């Protein structure tokens, strides 16, 4: 067998095995998206109810003050939570989040604030480590299948940082950069300000309540302040949980798409290489035939000459 043919055949074999891997990854990711979406849906009722309760509380107690609701313009530090994935093979997923976060941090610096990164996911951590940049804290190992405890831990840490006085390095704002799962085909990296709170409700409220205008006047058990104290951290955790779930669903969706195009691409390469291989084989055969024919002719001529 000719040298070229051998090389091409080896490349075909290796491309085929790569295509097998990416195809498997694609299938795994597609089976996990469904589950991830399901979890996003299941977290819906809680998120809806807690948002409703908070807006009821805040709108009825306009005078109510809580550290988590207060703007703190004197604080020059702003926490930025990056939600990235633990594993690669997901196309532009992590790059998009990191780019968005970089944009946000530049903006914060322009406003005279010092961004403090908090990172979820090994890829983000790796990116920071490689550039020897500093970050405050990392959480890894759950990006594709987060548990509520993870959101709890992150939420507690951030709320604690927010609660610290400015002199001790407390942060005045908390931003989250995550990937929103818009649809199977679209996932966009988003910046969301978590603290101080901006309560988004209107669209989440059911129709009849919106038309009634004001929410009913609530009694609080034991007191409005105590309820607020208990509610706000829960609300933060529920927001983070929701974002972790969205990010996980997006990660699977993007991985599926990246792996699908990798598989398609590998198949194209295989097709092209097969053509090259066929051509090489054909050329080899042609050459062999012409050698045989040439040899036979030469033999015939010499034997004719000798007679």
């Amino acid at each position, binding site marked *: 067998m000719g040298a070229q043919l051998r090389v091409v055949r080896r490349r075909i074999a290796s491309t085929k095995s790569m295509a097998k891997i990416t195809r498997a990854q694609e299938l795994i990711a597609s089976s996990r998206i469904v589950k991830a979406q399901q*979890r996003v849906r*299941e*977290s819906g*009722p*809680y*998120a809806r*109810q*807690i948002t*409703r*309760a908070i807006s*009821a*509380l805040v709108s009825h107690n306009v005078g109510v003050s809580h550290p988590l609701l207060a703007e703190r313009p004197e604080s020059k530090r702003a926490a930025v939570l990056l939600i990235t994935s633990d594993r690669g093979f997901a196309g532009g997923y992590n790059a998009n989040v990191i780019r968005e976060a970089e944009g946000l941090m530049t903006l914060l610096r322009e406003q005279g604030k010092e961004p403090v990164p908090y990172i979820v996911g090994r890829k983000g951590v790796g990116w920071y480590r490689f550039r020897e940049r500093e970050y405050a804290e990392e959480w890894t190992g759950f990006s594709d299948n987060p548990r*509520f405890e993870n*959101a*709890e831990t992150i939420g507690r840490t951030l709320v604690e940082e927010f609660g610290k006085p400015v002199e001790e390095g407390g942060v005045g704002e908390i931003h989250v950069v995550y990937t929103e799962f818009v649809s199977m085909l679209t996932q966009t990296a988003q910046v969301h300000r978590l603290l101080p709170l901006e309560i988004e409700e209107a669209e989440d409220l059911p129709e009849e309540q919106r038309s009634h205008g004001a*929410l*009913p*006047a*609530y*009694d*609080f*058990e*034991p007191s409005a302040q*105590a*309820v607020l104290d*208990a*509610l706000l951290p*829960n609300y933060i*955790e*529920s927001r983070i*949980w929701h974002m972790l779930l969205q990010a996980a669903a997006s990660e699977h969706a993007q991985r599926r798409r990246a792996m699908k195009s990798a598989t398609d691409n590998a198949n194209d390469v295989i097709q092209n290489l097969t053509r090259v291989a066929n051509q090489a084989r054909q050329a080899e055969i042609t050459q062999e035939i012409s050698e045989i024919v040439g040899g036979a002719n030469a033999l015939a001529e010499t034997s004719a000459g000798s007679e």
Partner: protein
Amino acid sequence: MAKLRVELVSPEREIWAGEADMVVAKTIEGEMGILPGHAPVLGVMVDGSVVRIHPSDGGDPVAAMVSGGFFSVASNEVSVLAEYAELGGEIDVRAAREEYERVSAQEGEEAAAAQRRARARLRAAGQEV
């Protein structure tokens, strides 16, 4: 008679939803029974307590162990939002009992909270503690 529309949810999933005649939850100030027509209220629940729901289809009361969270009542809608919740029927009584005995032997604030949760778990499962 009007019914209560009840939703018992935890961040991870909806645990129970349906119509009920009465809901009993425990706040820091004591147990509170909610009947249809109750005034709007937002209450903080005790970490490690039992919520009881009496379904209006006449079935057995549903008991759930909750740890932390709150409930809101408004226009005959009751939402119980627990940080963590488990239905009595889903609790493994033997494991819960072992857990209860283990944490009861310990001392300290953490252990007291754990004990309260373990006790609530057993109560929700219909055990006497």
